[in-house]
């Protein structure tokens, strides 16, 4: 009986780390969001680089998509317990949840430069170049602190 109890107690202890919450929906939403960002940045960046012709309509649509993503409420996606220490399949560092205000500020900064791109996209690649640089800066400033290396 004692052995059985001990076994049960031990199993319960061992099972604890595995009791992480299922965060697969949050992870999919997050990674999808960043994929949408990358695709639209690609439309704009290729025009800036001269890899594709400037197309005002396409540029506008891409920039608006970025602005749209910037309005998604991030705490819903970055739920407590969905960092890389707690669940597999993510590079989100625990520092995000240690500095929620800074994380929110960096996301807001992305929104601001996305809005700049929205204005620039209407005028042509001359204005889009600096806006693209600002977007790159916004991505980097967050990834520098909050994303684990591959």
């Amino acid at each position, binding site marked *: 009986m004692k052995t059985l109890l001990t076994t049960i107690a031990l199993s319960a202890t061992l099972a604890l780390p595995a009791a992480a919450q299922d965060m697969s929906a949050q992870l999919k939403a997050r990674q999808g969001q960043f994929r949408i960002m990358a695709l639209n*940045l*690609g439309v704009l960046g290729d025009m800036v*680089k001269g890899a594709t012709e400037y197309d005002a309509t396409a540029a506008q649509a891409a920039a608006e998509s970025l602005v749209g993503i910037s309005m998604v409420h991030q705490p819903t996606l970055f739920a407590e317990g969905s960092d890389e220490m707690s669940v597999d399949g993510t590079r989100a560092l625990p520092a995000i949840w240690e500095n929620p205000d800074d994380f929110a500020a960096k996301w807001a900064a992305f929104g601001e430069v996305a809005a700049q791109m929205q204005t620039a996209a209407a005028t042509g690649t001359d204005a889009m170049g600096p806006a693209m640089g600002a977007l*790159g*800066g916004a991505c980097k400033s967050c990834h520098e602190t909050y994303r684990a*290396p591959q």
Partner: protein
Amino acid sequence: MSKLLKTAAILAILGGGTAWWLSRPIHADPSDFEGLTGDATHGEQVFLAAGCASCHMNEETKEKTVLTGGMELPSPFGSFVVPNISTDPEHGIGGWTVTEFATALQKGVSPKGQHYYPAFPYTSYTHMAAQDIVDLKAYMDTLPASSQENADHDMPFPFNIRRSLGLWKQLYLKDSYVVTNTPGSEIERGRYLVEAMGHCGECHTPRDQFGGLDRSAWLQGAPNPSGKGEIPGITRGILNWSKEDIAYYLSSGFTPDYDSAGGHMALVIENTSKLPDEDRDAIAAYLLALP
């Protein structure tokens, strides 16, 4: 004493003496810097290309021109704390002569004659041109002083014996570049930016058991010294990016599929984005010329 013992004693003294001699601190040659005048404006470009602020910036405030240090650099040998290199005469490097500054950069030796740990990339900076060193000093002399005291490195025995770094330098502090064949001035400039200034190899090249760079796997990627993840290889075959892709990444931080740089590389790009276009093109040309 038997003859054998005497011989052994003499050999031990000779051996110890040789090791002591081999591990001595080497100094830069003051005559290399005689008659050179520092240009602080160009020095800022050197400061960016050499990536000084990426490690020496104020760890608390992240200000890139306040060189307080404080960042922790983990390694398999122990943990380094980046020192204060601001103009403060007591806690920083204010008041150093040009030769002392050059000795630190090119030989990894402090004004007191102590070896620096190679977390400070002097095996790269050893290739820096005399004029660039003088210009860099002129620029750094214009930056503010920070009176923050330096924290100690967390190095266990035997790695806390700095004298032994002199022997390490015999193996790894080399006068020669890794790439010896540089067809054209662009690739040559790229080599200077990558191998000397940018010290790219310090992270992107794997290290051997003594922590020296494995030049046979130059820029082919390495484990992250933090213990988690990999630093990617950046040779042509591994990366498979065009020259424009590389130059654009170094200016914007965007990869060809519009992912963005992160971690320490984000800090590197903050510097490379401020370099002239020709320098980013040169880095790309050098990387594409690698085997």
